[in-house]
């Protein structure tokens, strides 16, 4: 293999991504981050509960909505890293795909998949299973969960975040 062709392979790409710890995603593995995640959900519920004129059912639905939309944007919509250290190795990769360097079913990924499910079950219970609230919660949670499936790793739908490949 010539030197020139070797530098175009995926092997070099992978090496570039793993040569240093990816500080953009490594903090998700700390248990403090997991705890903070739960606390943030509680805080969201709390603040929606304070708003005058909002019934508890609406508060729960809004909590589920806010958490799922917010975590979707953070994990699946934004690509790249905020600081430059590997000549753009992470340019087209979302935070979810960066976690643990692409290894599926790690502890962090399992945790981040559980939280929307538990939140969904709780909020449907507390909205007394009203159909409208149920459908909103269901749709938002399902979108969030589909994005986290291993089959969707680096899959781009509808050309969103599509990385233009030059040869």
């Amino acid at each position, binding site marked *: 293999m010539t030197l020139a062709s070797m530098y175009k392979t995926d092997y070099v790409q992978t090496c570039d991504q793993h040569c240093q710890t990816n500080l953009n995603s490594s903090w998700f593995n700390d248990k403090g981050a997991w705890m903070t995640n739960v606390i943030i959900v509680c805080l969201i519920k709390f603040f929606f509960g304070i708003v005058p004129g909002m019934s508890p059912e609406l508060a729960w639905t809004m909590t589920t909505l806010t958490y799922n939309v917010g975590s979707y944007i953070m994990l699946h919509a934004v690509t790249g890293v905020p600081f430059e250290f590997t*000549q*753009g*190795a992470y*340019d087209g990769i979302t935070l979810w795909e960066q976690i643990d360097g692409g290894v599926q*079913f790690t502890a962090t990924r399992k945790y981040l*998949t559980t939280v929307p*499910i538990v939140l*969904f079950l709780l909020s449907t219970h507390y909205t007394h299973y009203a159909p409208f609230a149920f459908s909103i919660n269901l749709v938002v949670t399902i979108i969030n969960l589909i994005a986290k499936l291993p089959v969707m790793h680096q899959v781009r739908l509808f050309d969103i975040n599509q990385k*233009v490949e030059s040869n």
Partner: protein
Amino acid sequence: MDNPILAAVNQTLQASSRAIEAIPGSDIVINYIKNSYQNDPFRVVLELGLAVFAVKYMLSKKYRIDPSHIKLTEKEIDELVAEWQPEPLVQPLSDIQRMELEKTQVIAGHQGPKPKMLSSGKNLLNLASTNFLGYINNEDIKEKAIETLRNYGVGSCGPPGFYGTLDVHINLEKDIARFLGTEKAIIYSQNFSTISSVIAAFSKRGDIIVADDGCNFAIQKGTQISRSNIKWFKHNDMADLERVLESIKKETATSKKRPLTRRFIVTEGLFQNFGDIAPLDKIMELKEKYKYRVILDESNSFGLLGKNGRGLTEVFNISPKRVDMIIGSMATALSGTGGFCAGSKEVVEHQRLSGQAFVFSAAMPAMLAVCASEAIKILETPEKGNKLLKDMNDNAAAFRNVVVSAPQAIEVSSDVGSPILHLRFPKNALSAAGITTRDEEKYLLQEIVDEVAVKDGLLITRAKYVESQEMFLPRPSIRISICATHARKDVEKAAQAIKASFVKAVSKRK
């Protein structure tokens, strides 16, 4: 009969329900389940499905998606370990490597135009060091250097960003910017890593670099570590350059989403491997037409070309502000060390954090920065500077006139006026002499080098390359670097001797 079976089932159910009720917290769960049914079986099925999915997900084993990860069984690992034989720590040298090691000349004492050799004790005329303007033995620079050494000590003790920058570094940057006519300049401590750092600081993955295929090794490494898409064009062939630029324009015009990539043209002012000059005027024309940025590596032309030594921009009368990044070397013409990048304020300031060799390497010693500053000041005073350049040009012309008069034995690939000359065997002479491989050619050139060292008192060298890593390996050659302080007679005599050696080497084998 049904009755005993029914009674048994009834009993087990009652027993299990009593057992479940005994579990603490079970009434909450039972309440939850009772509440959740709500006469809507479909929803319950959905929630159960979600719970089952969650459990299945929790129990999945983790795996890597990356295809290059090979999993070996224990048995395979044991087999591989058993059959492994350690290689020797130092590989035995091949013949040509041993030859190179033995024939390399060692200088006893200090560098200069006529250094003394360790092996023979004789003084040879130095045509190998890049001491183009003779600054190594310049007395004014030597005095200034000793004075600086007494004031500042030897080292700078740190990278430039972390207490390593001295006032002499800042003065040198100002001197370079003033001399060239750009807004600002930044200095690096090592010549080789300057161009690699500059390219990597501005060009990242997804960007496009169009580079000349005669570029030196440092530029090739720089483009490699930048991880950009590199397209090569034929050496100094402007038609080929235009073809490449046009093809890139077509490719990116047809893609649906046109990304905002940065595009660069990288070329050298005076090519280190060939000694010819890039046609900067045509390159600037193409750059304006296709909207590229130009990175010009003037390592071998800064301080040497042009009326006052300002480099290629002076030769072609182009404002240096039009070239985006001018990279030069203080290690060649200016008898200092390191390199610089000159450009606009934004270009230079960006490199203070992104230039890898600037951030992660020690600052250059104060003495060498002062030497380079003094060298620039000498170049700026017309009487001294112009005289040095004229001497160098005259010597180069004298040498060149002699060696081009034997085209059957010597192929000179350098332009008129270039202080670097590459002397190669013409291809037909080689085939006539029965030399087919690169190693044989190198041996023959080395014979010439040894012969003129012994017979004529000349120190010359072959151009050396890291052959396994060069993208476009140049042919073996002898590289001559002309010095301004050599006497004209010496240079002409040297040229005659080298020409005679070449002619003899080519005709001997017939």
